[in-house]
């Protein structure tokens, strides 16, 4: 699992029911648009993320696309992150002196 994917999964898993638009995810994950949108596109193709167009409250605003994890996406994300944490703990046990840098979402 790549670092950007890990960050995106963590953002969505903070509150799986919340729908987030692209810029919101970008800010939270600290990813540039050129990385995030292809990633979201790929996740959507795999059926892990679903999107819907919603018109915001304010008048004159364009409809925006909101993303959320599908039930399958939630399962996969949790599994992947759990496996990743297990791998990291194993690495830490093997080399206690080495610091494994956590993803930004971990730090919060």
């Amino acid at each position, binding site marked *: 699992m790549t670092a950007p994917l890990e960050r995106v999964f963590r953002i969505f898993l903070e509150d799986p029911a919340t729908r987030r*638009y*692209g*810029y919101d995810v*970008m800010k939270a994950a600290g990813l*540039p*648009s*050129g*990385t995030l*949108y*292809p*990633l979201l*596109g*790929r996740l*959507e*193709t795999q059926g892990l993320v679903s999107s819907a167009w919603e018109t915001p409250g304010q008048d004159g*605003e*364009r*409809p*925006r*696309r909101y993303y959320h994890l599908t039930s399958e996406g939630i399962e996969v994300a949790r599994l992947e992150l759990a496996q990743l944490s297990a791998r990291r703990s194993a690495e830490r046990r093997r080399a206690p002196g080495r610091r494994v840098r956590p993803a930004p979402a971990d730090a919060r």
Partner: protein
Amino acid sequence: MRGERWALRAGELLVSLASRRLPPGIRQERYQEWLAELPVILRDRGPAPVRVARMLAFAADTVRGAALAPETYHGTHRGKAAKNMRWLGTGLLLLGGLLVLLPVAALALLYPEIRDIHQLAVGPSLAYGVSGVLVGLVLLAATFIPRWYNPQRRWFSVSKLVAGADLSLRWVVASLLNWGHPLLFAIISYCGYAISVACLGTATVLTVRSLFRPQVR
């Protein structure tokens, strides 16, 4: 704010460039999505220049993302064959351009010589001969200016001068003095042209040598 409006226009332009690189099936959808994000970023927290820079960075990065991996956006892609065909087309176009350009360049370089040979064959005109002499003299005089001097240029100007003088002399002997045997005209013409060609050959050899000589700085 006026500046922000211009920035928004620039952002829209970048986003439209990015979406043009995407597969047709998802192009419009992505364009609308990115377009909707731009004013939101522009109204986000922070000082105006930072917000503008953030919005432009967002738009510019969509171009990068679309250029690097257009196929990852929706599982669809243009394919390697299409990319190869595009390169093949560009290559063929360049080759075609070169094939047209090379004869044109060669013709432009050889045109003065073709005109000289034509004049020798049909009988010289005084205007052509005299203008040849004048052009040769101007070019020769220019080579005496230190910054314009180089041996190739001097030999080339001598070649043009000799060709012009030869044609003018033939015209004077044939038309003005009204005497001489056709053999004499032929000797004048072809000897003069031979000298001219020899000078031109020397200029060419010097030019070719200077191209292959290592430059000392």
